[in-house]
């Protein structure tokens, strides 16, 4: 049965349930849920639905609910698996027919208050029990920079807690009404951090409190313990790749998605210059994202245990893929990428993913720095035991001095603001060498650059 009305949006997934094409409003939701396009489906209920349709090989139609942090989206989604000649699902066609977004309901105030109290308790670095007049009865602190004030309070139990801290903007040193002190910013002798007081009243709601819990929290992290002399504390290995990159990716993806939303004026009409600002924000965000990826890569390839996993690969195939992936970007500058012809092959022994990464970097650079309406040539050649692949552009080229520096870490050759991190070629060369090959540049100023990647021939 094909419903007569056209779908609101259409999307496709591949045999691994990766979203490979999608239209708004699905794209926005996918990005806001932290996903990419193409990339794994990041909307949990949609991912489940698509996976199920593909595995069962049945046409499904179901409502899904998703939350992106701001809105609850309810949608009616239909998934049609597409089968190949053997009856295996090669992917799915996804149709969205009904879309309703509603702001997340505000939490009711009581639940919110009790949750806030829980959070403050959990984050407090000093907690104290106060009586009805806000005099200190007991105090606990578990960070060194508050040990002093905790000791002072303990030595003078029965005095108001406000005697031991300096409250921002407070001129009378009398204990104020607790509601005025709740949330107050303050400083504490012995700590360089700024603190916030939180007073959680005890007793029956509505009545005057018969006591308080005082929690001091700070937005700043506690000072690191002074390093022991002689031994420099080492940062954990793979700090960026393992700890930072996953945390950074999502907020950055969000920045990009929101900026794109503004740029596309999806939320309403907008003056042209603001749309341009939004584009700048999105571009900067994308740059930041690739920088995070580069830094994670850098860390991996610089670690002692870095090794590649070589397999027989066809360099011609990798080259055609790289050209295909960057084709759209090249067309935007009316640049032609001349990739090896379909029939060409050049067997080599290397890690597919790494070779592709290097080629994307080389061809991407060529697109970025070559003038419009030029040609980028990707050519293959076998030389002794090495399989070589050359990426040549018709850009300004590099002089001898630049060619000598271009593979250095963070080398930008004086360029800025073009989305490069100065890490791509450095990483590419390290990767090439780790695979038993090399990456070199042959260029003379004024004749275009020619980067040659060599790996062991297969």
């Amino acid at each position, binding site marked *: 049965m094909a419903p007569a009305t056209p779908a609101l949006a259409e999307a496709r997934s591949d045999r691994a349930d990766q979203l490979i094409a999608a239209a708004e409003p699905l794209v926005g939701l996918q990005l806001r849920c932290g996903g990419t396009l193409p990339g794994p489906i990041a909307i949990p209920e949609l991912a489940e639905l698509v996976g199920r349709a593909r595995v069962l090989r049945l046409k*499904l139609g179901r*409502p899904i609910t998703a939350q992106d942090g701001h809105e609850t989206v309810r949608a009616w989604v239909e998934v049609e698996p597409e089968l190949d000649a053997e009856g295996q699902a090669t992917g799915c066609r996804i149709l969205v027919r009904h879309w309703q977004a*509603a702001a997340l309901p505000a939490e009711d105030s009581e639940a919110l208050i009790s949750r806030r109290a829980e959070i403050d308790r959990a984050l407090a670095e000093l907690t104290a029990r106060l009586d009805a007049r806000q005099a200190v009865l007991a105090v606990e602190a578990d960070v060194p920079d508050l040990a002093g004030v905790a000791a002072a309070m303990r030595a003078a139990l029965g005095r108001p807690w406000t005697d031991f801290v300096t409250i921002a903007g407070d001129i009378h040193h009398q204990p104020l009404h607790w509601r005025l002190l709740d949330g107050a910013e303050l400083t504490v002798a012995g700590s360089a951090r700024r603190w916030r007081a939180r007073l959680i009243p005890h007793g029956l709601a509505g009545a005057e409190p018969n006591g308080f819990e005082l929690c001091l929290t700070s937005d700043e992290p506690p000072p690191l313990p002074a390093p022991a002399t002689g031994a420099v504390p080492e940062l954990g290995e793979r700090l960026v790749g393992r700890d930072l990159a996953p945390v950074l990716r999502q907020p950055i993806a969000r920045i990009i998605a929101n900026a794109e939303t503004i740029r596309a004026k999806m939320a309403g009409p907008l003056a042209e210059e603001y749309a341009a600002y939004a584009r700048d924000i999105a571009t900067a965000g994308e740059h930041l994202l690739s920088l995070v990826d580069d830094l994670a890569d850098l860390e991996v390839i610089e670690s002692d245990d870095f090794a590649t996993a070589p397999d027989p690969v066809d360099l011609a195939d990798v080259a055609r893929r790289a050209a295909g992936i960057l084709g759209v970007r090249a067309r935007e500058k009316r640049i032609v990428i001349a990739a090896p012809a379909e029939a060409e092959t050049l067997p080599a022994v290397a890690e597919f993913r790494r070779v592709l990464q290097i080629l994307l970097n080389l061809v991407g650079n060529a697109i970025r720095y070559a003038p419009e309406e030029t040609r980028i040539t990707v050519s293959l050649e076998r030389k002794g035991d090495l399989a070589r692949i050359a990426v040549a552009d018709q850009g300004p080229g590099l002089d001898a001095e630049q060619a000598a520096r271009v593979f250095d870490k963070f080398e930008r050759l004086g360029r800025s603001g073009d989305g490069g991190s100065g890490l791509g070629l450095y990483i590419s060369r390290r990767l090439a060498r780790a695979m038993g090959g090399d990456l070199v540049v042959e260029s003379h100023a004024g004749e275009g650059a020619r980067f040659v990647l060599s790996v062991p021939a297969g």
Partner: protein
Amino acid sequence: MSTSHADPNPPDSAEATLRQALARGDAAQAGVAPVLRHLLVAEDHGLFAEEVVTRVRGTLADLSGQLCHAVTVAHGLDAPLPPEDPAVARLARQLAEIPALLAHVHALALEAQAAAQLRARLGLDPVLSPLVQALVASPEAETADLAMRFLAAEARFQRQVLAMRLPLGELPPELLHGALLALRECLGGAGGTPHPDFAACAEPAAEAIRANYDERASRLGLAARIVTGLGGGVVAALQLPHAGLGLFASALALATAQHREQVLLAIQPGQGPRLALMLRAAGLRQAAIDESLAALDAGPTPAEVLRLDAARAAQLLAGG
């Protein structure tokens, strides 16, 4: 009878087999009295009413017949196997071993029974409820079209129930998948099949059934789509006398993230508190809950339920 103390004689395998057979017989006999007592005492209890049990049995046989028919078609014969054919009976028994499928078929029998009772008691038309009527008259072509298709599907369902038929296309996809696996197992299994030629046809038959299947066109698929399309107006579908049982059960299941089968069990006599809890979890106020409970003659909304907010009610339902 099994003995707990050690046997002084050396173990004899023939005796051991006999002992096991006796033990099994004991267990079966021990089950007779409680089951029989339950069936006798629970005469008015809808869950195991003879009518319901018969419908479940008949519906499973119908599903089995359709699956076997698909095999004969794949084999080149276009003649349905008679229900008494050993292959059909065997597959029907196998289908009954799929708990979710059994629960679904049981729930549909209960749904039909309850719908008939609602019509007798309140004059509520099982096919054309006030809500369906309103949707059919909608100025939006898409809504009206959906409602018309649901109306037709509901009418088909009511007729099919009487005949103890359930087309494969009306099964939820997971259950259809399970039924197709059972078909393959039954025809290709080690026990052989009454029709050896059919074994090779199980796969093509399953493929043909898959290709014809479209959840969107099923009664439950249409109901879910209508309920989703109501958006904030879903409250209308959560009032049993207004929505009719078909849409009501789908709406409540979606609103509470419960299986539709669970909703249909909750409309049974004696389950008033559970139904009230579900309606509360769906965010309804007392007046609306009262209305649905009254339609089922399930008594007033328990005060304990009214003290809970929607989130807590949902938590309780989820076993928290």
